[in-house]
């Protein structure tokens, strides 16, 4: 019999890399893969927050700003979209973050804080030793994804017909109030779902930051493979984890989308 893949499968030890029982205390502890999975979620969440903020500001500037605002928005979007995310992440980590983050001394400040404070930061962000890499990864990803969000927002605002502006003007609303009360609510309904899709792709793109040694799912998996040589088991497990995360998100989004469509 010809075996296509000559490989000894060893699935039985994989669950131990999610949770293990601490021999000293007898309590269940999260292990590398679970920790990596949680880091991926934290990282994606923070980059999404930043991308949402940056993208909205830049999108509004691009759609309704004067010439300088439009130029800035264009510059940001075209720069971020035309650099591979891998290159952006590396540039950001080695050059930009070395200047600003390390100069800020975030990790040194954190080390001098109490244990409770350090644990809180570790819960929401990353461990003290990892904080600089984590922040620089989240910011780089946020900048990258923000450019796409910016285009989505700009498209949403531009899709509101000129008649809406004229109608608002004719009932005496100021330009700012027109924007705030008439255009933005309509635009946001239109862009909510493409934006949610962009957030899902942030989760997938977050695998890239493994190159700057942020301990997210892909990095932890690669470390584990280097130690155990269980290449296929671990890659398959990682694939399933990413899929479960993004698929459940995309299902819940389309569920909400349907509900919203009925209400309208």
């Amino acid at each position, binding site marked *: 019999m010809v075996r296509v*893949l000559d490989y000894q499968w060893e699935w039985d030890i994989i669950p131990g890399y999610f949770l293990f029982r601490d021999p000293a205390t007898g309590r269940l502890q999260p292990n590398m893969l679970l920790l990596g999975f949680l880091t991926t979620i934290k990282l994606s969440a923070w980059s999404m927050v930043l991308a949402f903020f940056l993208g909205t500001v830049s999108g509004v500037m691009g759609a309704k700003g004067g010439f300088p605002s439009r130029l800035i928005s264009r510059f940001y979007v075209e720069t971020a979209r035309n650099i591979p995310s891998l290159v952006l992440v590396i540039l950001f980590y080695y050059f930009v973050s070395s200047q600003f983050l390390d100069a800020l001394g975030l990790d040194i400040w954190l080390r001098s804080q109490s244990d409770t404070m350090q644990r809180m930061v570790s819960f929401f962000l990353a461990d003290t030793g990892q904080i600089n890499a984590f922040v620089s990864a989240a910011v780089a990803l946020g900048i990258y994804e923000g450019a796409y969000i910016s285009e989505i927002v700009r498209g949403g605002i531009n899709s509101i017909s000129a008649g809406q502006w004229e109608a608002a003007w004719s009932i005496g609303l100021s330009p700012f109030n027109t924007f705030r009360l008439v255009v933005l609510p309509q635009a946001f309904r239109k862009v909510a779902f493409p934006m949610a899709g962009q957030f899902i792709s942030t989760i997938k793109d977050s695998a890239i930051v493994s190159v700057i040694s942020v301990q997210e799912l892909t990095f932890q998996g690669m470390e584990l493979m280097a130690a155990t040589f269980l290449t296929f088991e671990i890659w398959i497990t990682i694939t399933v984890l990413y899929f479960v995360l993004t698929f459940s998100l995309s299902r819940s989004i389309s569920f909400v989308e349907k509900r919203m469509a009925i209400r309208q």
Partner: protein
Amino acid sequence: MKNIGCALLAVVLLSYTTCLAGELGDQLAKESIVEKIQKTKVIRVGMSTFVPWAMKDKQGKLIGFEIDVARQLAQDMGVAVEFVPTAWSGIIPALMTGKFDVIIGGMGITPERNLKVNFTMPYDYSGMSMVAHKKKADGFSTLADFNKKEVDIAVRMGTTAEQAARKYLPNARLRLFENESQALQELNLGRVHAVVSSAPMPVFHSLKYPDKLFVPLKENFTKEPIGFAIRKGDHDALNYFNNWILNARAQGFLAEKKAYWFESRQWEDLVK
């Protein structure tokens, strides 16, 4: 016009960051890391997973020869140790930009690397060995057998294994991988003839798959010194680490650890 403006701005920004990176190097060199470590009470050690130098056990704790060395070093300095697992291909840039204080990661001392970083005196010696596929490399027993055009060799990118393969097997086709496990996978699937890597990994791996793999060369074909790597210009740190290594060797600490991690296989149960 707009495009020209954008391009100009990009050029200015890029050159600005490059200048800043240069300044940062100077600034880091001013203060010795030995003082910084004393002040912050923590030594940050850059490393990368390499069995059995550094790896994670079943509980996710770091273990290995390098880990023991770094822990002992930190204990002797009276500070805590913090390991920074880093992708091997980016470990020297990460050291130079101050992501950690020292590389204790089984790094071979080479003239090329030495142009970028300073090395301590060697605390260990390693050598290149090879594990080959029984069917593909049937009857191969010398380096000359592998040094042929139709032979494929897999190595981990950016390692001294890559350099050794280029030097001793210039005619063979090299396949470069980011991680050792990927190179070994390629070998297990029979897509390459052999994997070149630092001893003792090739021997361990052939013992794991005895019906498929074998070690063609009886002895290591290179001998290379292994040292700590630190940023250039820090003579205090160099002096401190050199003398620490002298002491550790004199007290038998290094020999004892080497025997445990490289000659015995008692630690195998810890990993799997």
